[in-house]
């Protein structure tokens, strides 16, 4: 049998742990990541030369961060690591890479997708004003550059990242004017049983909340009708609580409504997708171990369904074991079962989180017609609704064809969640019925000049 060519995409917790398992048996996987340094989202490292301690950067998670970074540095000589390399296409058994400004193709026999997640974005009035960030972007600024996004900051949305980020910002010395949570206290109570499946994690969450309250940060739960206003940049934010409007001055807003898996490469690899009720997203099918519907393609970590960093490490290992098994290597079955059990416990906790921090249900109904949903192509909610009503559109790709929503630079990564909600709501269909946006390469913009250089080089050689 030929040497397997194993490619892992993503050097976050999932990808690094997968690489570790493979390298341990003497395989030499290629590990590709768009970032300059390994660690993924949660254990993102600042550029070399920045000095902030792991404790400052990762708080409670600093031991885990240190462990992962340490594992990675030990791995370096046993794997083929390609940082600053975007995988922009997957076709047949080959990836297209944009490798530090050059086009390369990389054939594989086995592909492990550990591509992580991005924020779920739901537009609100003023969301396009300078000074409005996603929670994720605000965190990247802090972790990678030691910057905060403003001097009077409001964090708004839903999900555990909301409190975590507020805590991290406050700890770093930023001034948090308020934390506005669109989910309610009663919803969180109902979710307690599931949340108790991970008592430590729950305790951390409660700790952030208590810490924020204790340090005088205004925390409001159960808010709706968020609106940001200002002339050239953010000046105030307003919201409703129990039907009463309130306003606060601020100069920056970070918002997010949970996370969405980055699934474009799985799509291009031909994986079968199914609608996942827990994540409220179409996700590539996978078995417990992480095998997708396509032979030789595996999924691990948040890219296959949001489960958090600890689960990502476990899932990376689990999928690597599955890959070894598929290569005909003998693996210790107890290890697989142990990982499966641990992953299942986390899954129960995840159910609790989704219940505690649901995306705002009335959002699609209440979103105003003039709100821009697709900022790349400047498509408003009203235009989407008009097409649904006028042309009877009931399917996502048809909506895209007729309006350009999801056709811009982001290719739907940012806008598709909101567009799907609007379509489903206006057409009176479920998110399952309206289907999912088909992906096309490049998954992120690709410079023409790179293609020209490659084509010219081929000509002369």
């Amino acid at each position, binding site marked *: 049998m030929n040497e397997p060519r194993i490619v892992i995409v993503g050097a976050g917790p999932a990808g690094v742990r997968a690489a570790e398992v493979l390298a341990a048996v003497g395989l030499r996987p290629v590990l590709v990541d768009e970032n300059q340094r390994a660690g993924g989202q949660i254990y993102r490292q600042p550029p070399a030369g920045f000095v902030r301690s792991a404790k400052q950067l990762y708080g409670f998670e600093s031991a885990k961060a240190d462990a992962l970074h340490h594992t990675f540095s030990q791995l370096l000589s046993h794997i083929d690591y390609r940082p600053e390399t975007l995988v922009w*296409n997957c076709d047949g058994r080959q990836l297209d890479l944009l490798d530090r400004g050059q086009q390369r193709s990389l054939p594989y026999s086995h592909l492990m997708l550990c591509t992580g997640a991005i924020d779920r974005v739901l537009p609100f009035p003023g969301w396009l004003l300078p000074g409005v960030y996603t929670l994720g972007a605000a965190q990247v600024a802090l972790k990678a550059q030691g910057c905060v996004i403003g001097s009077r900051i409001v964090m708004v949305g839903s999900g555990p990242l909301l409190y975590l980020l507020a805590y991290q910002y406050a700890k770093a010395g930023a001034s948090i004017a308020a934390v506005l949570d669109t989910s309610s206290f009663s919803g969180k109570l109902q979710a307690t049983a599931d949340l108790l499946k991970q008592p430590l994690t729950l305790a951390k969450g409660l700790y952030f909340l208590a810490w924020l309250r204790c340090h005088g940060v205004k925390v409001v739960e159960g808010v709706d009708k968020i609106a940001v206003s200002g002339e050239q940049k953010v000046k105030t934010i307003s919201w409703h609580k129990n039907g009463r409007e309130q306003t606060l001055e601020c100069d920056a807003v970070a918002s997010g409504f949970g996370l969405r898996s980055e699934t474009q490469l799985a799509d291009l690899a031909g994986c079968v997708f199914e609608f996942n009720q827990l994540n409220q997203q179409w996700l590539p099918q996978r078995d417990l171990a992480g095998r997708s519907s396509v032979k030789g393609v595996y999924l691990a970590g948040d890219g296959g369904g949001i489960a958090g960093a600890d689960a990502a490490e476990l899932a990376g290992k689990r999928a690597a074991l599955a890959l070894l098994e598929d290569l005909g290597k003998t693996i210790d079955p107890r290890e697989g079962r142990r990982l499966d059990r641990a992953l299942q416990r986390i899954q129960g906790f995840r159910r609790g989180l989704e219940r505690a921090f649901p995306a705002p249900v009335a959002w699609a109904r209440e979103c105003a017609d003039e709100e821009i949903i697709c900022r790349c*192509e400047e498509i408003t909610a009203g235009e989407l609704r008009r097409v649904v009503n006028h*042309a009877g559109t009931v*399917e996502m790709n048809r909506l895209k064809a*007729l309006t350009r929503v999801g056709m*811009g630079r982001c290719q739907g990564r940012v806008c598709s969640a909101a567009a799907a909600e609007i379509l489903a709501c206006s057409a009176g269909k479920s998110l399952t019925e309206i289907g999912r946006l088909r992906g096309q*390469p490049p998954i992120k*913009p690709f410079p*023409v*000049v790179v293609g020209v250089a490659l084509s010219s080089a081929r000509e002369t050689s």
Partner: protein
Amino acid sequence: MSERLTADVAIIGGGLMGCSAALALRRMNLSVVLLEQGWCGAQASGVNYGGVRRQGRPVVQLPLSQRAYAIWQRLPQLIGSDCEYAISGHLKLARNEAELASLEDYRGQADGFGLQLEILGREALRQRYPWLGENIAGGSLCPGDGHANPRLVAAAFALAARNHGADLREGTTVESAVFDGRQFTVCAAGGLEVKAKFLLNCAGAWGAKFAEQFGEQVPEYPIFPNMWVTEPMPKLVEPNVGIVGGGFYVRQVARGNFVLGGGRGTGQLAIASTRPDSAAMFASMRMACEFIPALRNALVIRSWTGVEGALPDHQPVLGPSVTTPGLFHAFGFSGGGFQLAPAVGEVLADLVAHGATATPIEAFSIGRFNAAS
């Protein structure tokens, strides 16, 4: 579930051919049932480059193309939208004297069809279009040609046909069609059966399959033109641009994006099975930048392809069946059917209603293949 329908005309395929035929037939008050396996206008008709061009077509297509040209001017009245149709001119470039001579030759052949072609030499070209690159010997401009948004056109024809009373069935795959000497019975998956006096085969790349059911062999094969589009750029290029030999083509849309094509992707004759090809994209990038250097600074945001039926002589099959009365074919447009489609629909309606059409279509007869074999 089983359902039976009767109509004057049954149409297989809801691309631009089928939908424009449905509309034209409804305007003649004939009843129409159209069966589409996916969504109307989601195949070749919805994903093509969007060139609305007469220049460069084989001369035998020009009468049909001119008829279409007249309909394109009336789109808002006909289907309620201009579908971003822009009369921008179509500029065909020549890299050397031989290619320029071929453009002059074509102008001679097309004389009398109303294309108003204007040949431009190197200097005139560079003066009029300062964004052009260096190595161009000349070009030919067809001022009345242009481009439109393909994603909108077939959908708008479908909607207009529906609003005129055509019964369009999407998600309905035709499995068989037979003629009993009097009428056609068309059976679709899910148990739908349509009886009709006339049958139109507008199944695009799948057209030969249905011709075969009526004993007509056509050497149709699928092609997958490779397309890509840039992010929006400042307005620069007005005309729809191509070159002699057809290695690449480019247009800039109102929003500023450049839409480009060249080379071939890959795929199968299955819905949603097509893939663009990176190497083809790189090659056409290089060509495009040679002719429009400003494109070097662009970012590509998307690439794609679609499936189109082609025939060895690059002419469509359009006209009556030679085996079966009441059956009319319109498929295999070989990469050039977008501009023609509105006229094809009218021609098919003429054939159904009057048994003849004033537009010359003999060159597209399905009999040309039977005779050869």
